[in-house]
């Protein structure tokens, strides 16, 4: 499978990366070279093989069902959460208007 410019533009839009015409043109051969190379995986017989989901067998734990089970990842740290926000407003993340 290979990608054309329209596909690259579509991927860029899905990935939320603004790309002008020239950038899309440049990306077409780059992606095709890489995709052409990874295509060799198709020749591997994977009959009956389950896709790997965990590299080291491990059971996912559940945190204690209480407020602030771990203070570091719990709540009550609004100012720290907002400390690096580009446009904090009134204790919230500011964004451009999304409704007309």
């Amino acid at each position, binding site marked *: 499978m290979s990608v054309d410019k329209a596909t690259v533009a579509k991927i860029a839009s*899905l990935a939320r990366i603004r790309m002008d015409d020239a950038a899309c043109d440049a990306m077409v051969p780059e992606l095709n070279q890489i995709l052409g190379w*990874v295509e060799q995986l198709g020749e591997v017989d994977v009959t009956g093989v389950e896709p*790997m989901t965990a590299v080291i067998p491990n059971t996912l734990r559940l945190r204690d069902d209480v407020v602030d089970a771990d203070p570091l990842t719990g709540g009550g740290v609004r100012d720290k959460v907002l400390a690096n926000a580009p446009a904090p407003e009134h204790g919230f*993340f500011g964004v451009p208007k999304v409704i007309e």
Partner: protein
Amino acid sequence: MTELTELTVAAIRKGVAGGDFTAVEVAEAFNANVAAASELNAFIVATPEKAVEAAQAVDAKRAKGEDLGKMGGVPIGMKDLFATNGVQTTAASHMLEGFVPQYESTVSQKLWDAGAGMLGKLNLDQFAMGSSNETSYFGNVISPWRRKDGGNADLAPGGSSGGSSSAVSARLCPAATGTDTGGSIRQPAAFTGITGIKPTYGRCSRWGVVAFASSLDQAGPMARDVTDCAIMLEAMAGFDPKDSTSLDMPVPEWEAGLNPDMKGKKVGIPREYRMDGMDPEILKSWDDGIAWLKDAGAEVVDISLPHTKYALPAYYIIAPAEASSNLARYDGVRYGLRDLPEGAGLQDMYAATRADGFGPEVKRRIMIGTYVLSAGFYDAYYNQAQKVRALIARDFEQAWSQCDVILAPTCPSAAFALGDKTSDPLSMYLNDVFAVPASLAGLPAMSVPAGLNSEGLPLGLQIIGKAFDEQGVLNAGLAIEQRAGFTAKPEAWWK
């Protein structure tokens, strides 16, 4: 007095504890080396005051007769992928330029708790994506090594932990943290004649480490020898409830367990790693390694890892797929860069922010990841890659019935010159051909220096071990280290 910056972690710790010198003297000596080496561009930010402050605390503890910790009095470099409270953390990206975490990563906190101090934040490939440290927004890192042809070409320190490898080999720090997703500790260690280990997936907490590919990312130490790696890994590892894939197992005493006697051990030599057109000097160093391990008492056995050639293409589907998901968080809303063009809406802001904030290699990988996860292609690419990954892990499982550790080269070549591979992403990716299989299988693997090639550049040997058997890997590494007698170091041309 001994030149403090020539000392290993073990020697610094011993000297500080024994009163031969103070931790502050050590910190100041390394601070001076860091300040004199700006030409290498190994640090994004130097934090000399942090190093001195930590050293003062260690000296005060000593005066009171308290325990100084596993890393007591040792100043280190911190890869700028680890969140450090109050100190800019960028992942070498424009996206996170100026980002000042309000919390400390688990691994860095453990190191400070063990008595280490921070010399600064080390440069790396942007979001850890690269094998030569040429994708950093803050400029290339230059290897302290030069070919002995007198040409003075700037060489790659490897990547993505290129600031770490450059700084350790140039004696700007005795040890540094690294992270390894597909070889990012081992390949730079090999390029610069130092030692680095990626432990079993889950040994070191990923909490507070800027995420690249979460099923592969693993932190580890980079230092000058095997003993120092064992010391530092002990300080970094351990269960962390804040990381859902953290291993809930005790941390072994790797340093105390070091034993270079390989009697009764079997070392597997994977025939598929012997590839057509391989550099004869790499083959020779591999043969040297085999002879050294035999000399240490090991039995050497031929093994097969039949899916080796598919590891790299599988990696270049899986890692970008995970990266495209992980990096979706950079949207200009909560932290990092925001680019809001005049009159733009939310979607335009996302797209503009990400266009400005990510470098070309990061965009390339996000694009590939988005494509292989998109409707209609998921099964053909992503699912197929995850199945091949299962087969690669199975190859190793089967090998362990024949051997205890595996010996292979770390890289297919010595360090290349900066700029040599930037025009062809594929040729850059191929540099990780020997490193990626162990990453996909989550296994511990380390690189130790084997010697110099005819150009005077270091070559590394890689040891891959069973899951949770870092000790076996470290021990084989030590057996090689004792026989390789690697003492070469770069001349300090940057001073």
